[in-house]
């Protein structure tokens, strides 16, 4: 008897008991259920929640693998053991075994903790509430390790994941009912609870925290951090695009995020309206700031000068903006639901991200706060779009009946 039959038997055995949702979840995750709908359904589609989630995970895998290599690359580069890759995407200095070993050693625990703790919370809630375990956490669990600094202590991640899943999602009723993106709730919790581990110039490169104060201390300032302090970025734009820069684990490579974004658009999982309008929003805000600098309204001594004078298109390459736009802003639960609303929603995310980034150097990752803010406003946007439609149609109705 195969695993499938065993699982099915367990499922039958525990039917109606408290643990039933847990067995059902494992069963549906691994196999097609034994019972499927035979009649009565009119719309048949191959993509259920599970497949949707898995498509997003597939789009995230390249970022994860790149993140592992980058973890080791940044570590050894800071130590001076290897040469910089310098704009060569297939550089042997980057894609080598030593780098991957460091990456596996540091990133895999993050992935395991994120999935283990998050799914445990989901199972506990499913058992208590007596509903089925939902697949919503599959993507969140993959996003979380990609958006935290590499050296984050694991116990902090555990607390943050519990907080994010319970407060961000379960209290509202679980997957599909949450107001805020759970992955960003987890990151925001970490950011406000343990700021020393989430910002500054130490946490982004593995080993930098441990070496503080020693003669061979290494530092790993992100580009945003350098610019906010008025220093030059220190990286070629091609390096930024390829992702050979310090940052959170999986968000550095704009190239791979772009590919993942195209994949999501091609499979119709991610909304191209949100992605496009968010990019436009960021470009517009960046353009305005460039204009302010060109007009000479602020001088080089201003503390905003560094980020304001950054060329407008480079805002897309640095920090987590691209990652946030492609994978977080498009979360179908927390984004606007109407097509027209998606344009406003996306545009404002890009616009506000760059705004926060420039005007508040204490919160270098503006995209996190911008998406959370717009998550809150998404229902309002939808409301006005709907009301606009209703008004227009009422008018049409009056013309017809008159």
């Amino acid at each position, binding site marked *: 008897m195969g695993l499938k039959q065993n699982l099915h038997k367990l499922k039958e055995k525990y039917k109606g008991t408290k643990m039933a949702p847990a067995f059902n979840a494992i069963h549906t995750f691994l196999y097609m259920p034994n019972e499927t709908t035979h009649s009565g359904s009119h719309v048949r589609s191959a993509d259920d929640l599970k497949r949707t989630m898995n498509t997003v995970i597939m789009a995230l895998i390249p970022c994860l693998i790149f993140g592992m290599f980058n973890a080791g690359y940044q570590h050894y580069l800071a130590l001076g053991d290897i040469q910089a890759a310098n704009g060569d995407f297939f550089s042997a200095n980057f894609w080598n075994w030593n780098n991957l070993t460091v990456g596996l050693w540091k990133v895999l625990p993050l992935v395991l903790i994120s999935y283990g703790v998050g799914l445990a919370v989901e199972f506990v809630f499913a058992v208590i509430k007596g509903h089925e375990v939902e697949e919503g956490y599959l993507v969140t669990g993959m996003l979380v390790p990609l958006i935290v600094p590499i050296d984050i202590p694991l116990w902090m991640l555990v607390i943050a994941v519990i907080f994010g899943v319970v407060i961000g999602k379960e209290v509202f009723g679980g997957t599909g009912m949450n107001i805020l993106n759970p992955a960003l709730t987890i990151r925001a919790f970490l950011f406000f*609870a343990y700021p020393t581990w989430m910002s500054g110039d130490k946490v982004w490169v593995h080993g930098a925290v441990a070496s503080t104060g020693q003669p061979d201390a290494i530092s790993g300032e992100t580009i945003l951090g350098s610019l906010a302090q008025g220093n030059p970025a220190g990286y070629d734009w091609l390096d930024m695009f390829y992702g050979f820069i310090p940052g959170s684990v999986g968000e550095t490579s704009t190239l791979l995020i772009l590919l993942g974004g195209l994949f999501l658009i091609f499979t119709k999982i991610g909304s191209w309206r949100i992605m496009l309008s968010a990019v436009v929003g960021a470009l517009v805000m960046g353009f305005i700031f460039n204009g302010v600098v060109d007009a000479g309204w602020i001088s080089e001594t201003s503390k905003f000068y560094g980020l304001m004078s950054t060329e407008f298109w480079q805002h897309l390459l640095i920090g987590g903006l691209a990652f946030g736009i492609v994978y977080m802003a498009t979360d179908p639960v927390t984004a606007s639901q109407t097509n027209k609303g998606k344009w406003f929603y996306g545009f404002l995310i890009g616009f506000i991200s760059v705004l926060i980034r420039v005007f508040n150097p204490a919160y270098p990752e503006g995209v996190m706060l911008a998406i959370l803010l717009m998550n809150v406003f998404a229902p309002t946007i939808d409301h006005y779009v709907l009301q606009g439609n209703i008004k227009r149609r009422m008018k049409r109705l009056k013309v017809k009946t008159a």
Partner: protein
Amino acid sequence: MGLLSKKDSKLILDPLADNNPITIQVLGICSALAITAQLKASIVMAVSVIFVLAIGNVVISLMRNIIPSKIRIIVQLIVVATLVIIVDQVLKAFAYELSKELSVFIGLIITNCIIMGRFEAFALGNGPWRSFLDGIGNAAGYGLILVIVGFFRELLGSGTLLGIKVLGDPIAKTGLYSIGYENNGFMLLSPMALIIVGLIIWVQRSRNKALIEEN
């Protein structure tokens, strides 16, 4: 309680749990968010409100038949303001550091919705003894939540309780801090107080299903 009749003891016990001013009536949230970062401030606030509300309820109840209803809000405000000024002066005289820490929030007891609410809803229609008990009960229910929130926020946010370093020294790395524990800075921000109050409401309603509103 042998001292009180069953009806009277209900006046004190009800607001502590099933009719709590903060978690059920959702009044007085502002001060619960603002001053609960330290346990000591929460306790002082709780005691102050118990004093103001108990005495105020008695005073209003004694005057309830001679207050013209058109100006009753002004009369109530004068009573609260007088009592709050007494509290403020006492704190300034005997606990100056603490009064600086609480700053405007002692003065803002005047605008605490619980106080005006009890004056309006209870003291204007009941005798002094029952009003006194009602004041104690409601203020204690408010204070209870304040102390719970203050306890968790100070313990997890600063690692101290009433200023005593119960979890060890974060700078010298003793106690819990020696194994890598760190204080949760989020606990010191007001949003976390809101979340803790929300969690208390969640626990309370899941234990007593009768409190869940239909909608």
